[in-house]
């Protein structure tokens, strides 16, 4: 009151100070508790910053595009059962304008997923947040540039490559000694608040069977849109890695009102070749055949979704050379055939996967 405050003002100021001090004390207690927890868990998983970086030169119908990208992934394990994980995508695509001039273009930024996973038991993992929509296998598992055998996206990828904001249950467990069963089921809420966080209101899921003996995997996916349109989408996937030869086969089929199509992709590693073994075991031959059929939307709508505007066929093959684990040089040639015109696709570039611990890794 000596500083000119009335009694109620003084009481209010005192309360604010106490709350502030209380808040600081609570934060300090929480911090100390968290520190204690971390101190007890030095043998536990360590947070990791991983991801991919790449530089590619795409020549599509004679038009050159320089593409530089970095896709960081943060993995933050908590205790025995939690994992918080996130992936962002920063991609710069630069082209010369029609008629010539210097290269220019946009740098796109995307949040692919930011999710918390709780491993409830050996059958169920609960995921909340923004996650990759579990439809087919390419979007969730084969998308990273260090994993995919050919850098061009499959034609039907826009039918399945989405992120969802909501909740998901998923898991994998042995059905018997010869087969593992895996599943994912999710609900997603509509999100239009931000360009990088968009999602549809829909439900869906995927089921699959993996046979570890012959290394065969197959399954199906389904999705139902719950907005003005109530359309269904479905798809099938198949993968096979023969045990006797270093071949990796993947395939997907997808169908929705926007279109349908399939791709079949094979990658053969020359590790069994009897000559120049030191170099040849790092070399991989990859090829893909694919087809897209128009759906019930206009060509303009299809192109806005990233789909071809007309029925399209494409064949592509290429070579990958693994300089070391996670670092490869890529080169490929493809040709696209459609009513809109036929053209060549050339790709050269380098893809790199990094992984850095965000803490002590010694036990």
């Amino acid at each position: 009151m000596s500083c000119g405050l009335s009694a109620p003002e003084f009481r209010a100021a005192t309360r604010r100070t106490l709350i502030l001090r209380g808040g600081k004390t609570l934060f300090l207690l929480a911090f100390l508790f968290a520190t204690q927890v971390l101190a007890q868990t030095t043998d536990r998983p360590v947070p990791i910053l991983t991801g991919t970086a790449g530089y590619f030169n795409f020549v599509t119908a004679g038009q050159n595009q320089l593409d530089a990208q970095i896709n960081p992934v943060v993995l933050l394990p908590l205790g025995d059962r939690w994992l918080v994980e996130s992936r962002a995508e920063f991609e710069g695509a630069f082209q010369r304008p029609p008629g010539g001039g210097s290269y220019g273009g946009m740098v796109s930024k995307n949040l692919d997923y930011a999710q918390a996973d709780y491993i409830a038991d050996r059958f169920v993992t609960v995921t909340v947040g923004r996650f990759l929509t579990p439809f087919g296998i390419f979007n969730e598992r084969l998308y990273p540039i260090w994993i995919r055998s050919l850098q061009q996206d499959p034609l039907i990828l826009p039918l399945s490559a989405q992120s969802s904001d909501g909740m998901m249950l998923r898991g994998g467990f042995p059905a018997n000694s010869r087969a593992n069963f895996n599943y994912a089921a999710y609900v997603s809420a509509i999100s239009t608040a931000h360009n990088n966080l968009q999602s549809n209101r829909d439900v869906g899921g995927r089921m699959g069977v993996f046979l570890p003996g012959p290394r065969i995997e197959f399954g199906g996916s389904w999705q139902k849109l719950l907005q003005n349109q109530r359309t269904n989408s479905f798809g099938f996937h198949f993968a096979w890695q023969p045990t006797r030869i270093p071949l990796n086969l993947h395939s997907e089929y997808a169908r929705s009102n926007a279109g349908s199509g399939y791709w079949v992709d094979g990658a053969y590693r020359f590790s069994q070749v009897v000559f120049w073994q030191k170099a040849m075991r790092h070399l991989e031959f990859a090829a893909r055949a694919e087809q897209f059929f128009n759906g019930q939307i206009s060509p303009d709508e299809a192109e806005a979704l990233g789909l071809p505007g007309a029925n399209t066929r494409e064949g592509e093959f290429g070579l990958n050379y693994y300089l070391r684990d996670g670092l490869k040089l890529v080169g490929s040639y493809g040709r696209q055939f459609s009513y809109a015109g036929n053209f060549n696709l050339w790709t050269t570039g380098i893809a790199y996967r990094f992984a850095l611990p965000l803490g002590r890794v010694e036990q």
Partner: protein
Amino acid sequence: MKSKVLGAIWLLALMSVIGVAATPPRTNTSTEPVVRNSAEAETMRLEGEKRFRANCGRCHAAPQKFPPRMMATILRHMRVRATITDEDMRLVLFYMTQ
């Protein structure tokens, strides 16, 4: 008063989450498999290699070995991403950290 209540709820929620994450499970859910002798360790290593080739090869070429604490994180990520089974995860982790 409202701020205090909200603060208390927030703190309780935070400590619950940390507590749940830090509480040792009743059953053996640790990622470290229990090994009794060297023969069993060798059997698990061989089985782990088999599972490693079958599971990891579903998507990508065999990766290098990372330090054990990194491998534990990577395997937890792959368990969720690739829906590999709990048993496969433990055996692959054992193989990759030997």
